[in-house]
């Protein structure tokens, strides 16, 4: 089946089987391996991407359902030379150890600050409830989101 998805601002046409998950289309067809597969059961959030601007779990969606939609992955939010403030804050605040959960964590945090530009620690924890990190204990992730939210607000 032919689908057209605008991925990170670029129209991509793909010929996919209906059962192909969006995360597989991103990783295996388009080669965008920044979006990770952790649990594959809608729990861990490693596969989180923005679909038309809101966070979704790309392991719980067929690529055909994204036909005509905008998808933003971790590759689409900043560059190596010009990191997004959220990426920069995860770096400066040590918001990661192994880094496996980080792409999904960053995308979820972006969805949170879209809805709530100045979140409290409790609101940040609620906002990343759908993302599991097994290394950090979340402490520095919360700090990173706080710092990034301030940077994005221009505070």
């Amino acid at each position, binding site marked *: 089946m032919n689908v057209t998805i605008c991925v990170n601002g670029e129209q991509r046409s793909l010929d996919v089987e209906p059962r192909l998950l969006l995360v597989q289309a991103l990783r295996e067809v388009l080669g965008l391996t920044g979006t990770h597969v952790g649990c594959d059961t809608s729990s861990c959030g490693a596969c989180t991407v923005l679909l038309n601007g809101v*966070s979704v779990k790309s392991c719980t*969606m067929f690529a055909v359902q994204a036909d005509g939609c905008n998808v933003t992955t971790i590759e689409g939010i900043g560059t190596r030379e010009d990191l997004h403030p959220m990426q920069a804050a995860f770096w400066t605040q040590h918001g990661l150890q192994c880094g496996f959960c980080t792409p999904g964590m960053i995308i979820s945090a972006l*969805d949170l600050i879209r809805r709530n530009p100045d979140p409290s620690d409790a609101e940040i924890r609620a906002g990343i409830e759908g993302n599991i990190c097994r290394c950090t204990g979340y402490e520095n992730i919360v700090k990173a989101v706080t710092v990034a939210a301030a940077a994005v607000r221009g505070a």
Partner: protein
Amino acid sequence: MIPVAFHYIRARDIPDALRLLREGGEDAKLLAGGHSLIPMMKLRLATPGTIVDIGSVPGLAGITHDGMRIAIGALTTHAALAASRELQEHAPALAQAAGELGDPQVRNRGTIGGACAHGDPSADYPAVMLALDAAFTLTGEAGTRDVGADAFFVGMFETALSAREVLTSIAFAAAPNSAYVKFHHPASGYPVVGAAVNLTLAGERISAARVALTGVGDAPFRAHAVEAALTGAAVTDAARLDAACRAAAAGVDARGDAFASAEYRAAMADVFVRRAVAAALQPR
């Protein structure tokens, strides 16, 4: 995990979806947000031959309130319900349940219609729907029928919705004194106990009460004895409200598991019903 291969068709509108369901026969299944169906397909617990995607059917999402009744389009996402000021004010139980289920990504994509049609007996919504006395509008090729929540939730993953119908909307009377309070399972996020309360007040007294629980037994149920005991109580009579909320799970075979024994669940049913009554009476 890779689902069994299926034929995928996107429906343009409801008549189109109904035609595709008929043509797909026994093997056809509706897909909305996919957050109940896709996980089951990945586990191959569901193996539909045809998927009819109604996710982009126009006019099926949104909240309307005519002053008396509130109608929710089946494709309205949990996130939209949770964020709705209309619901926070006029049916807080539903906004609270929508905001507490799953996680942000699930709420962004999952729909109320899909969740209700899935018929998961331990989900959050059935208790709220019972407390709100919601009517489910089911549309088939022969016409439309309304089914009340008491008759809609039939059993385990079974509802009154037939394989040739689409759940198009859910409507209920405004319920400003309603609340849903939930004991989250720390891992799954499902309700260990979820209590929904909808009180009608006449001055300082409760003139009618609907109380429903989920997570406790094999199916959501109304706590009729609690409803009767609450009726007539003064909202300031804390001792009577406490007494009314006892034995909420009486007569129900409470479930026990590694996280919560049957006795504990039954005890928590009382605690969470009492909290929901207090929340429903909270001035806003």
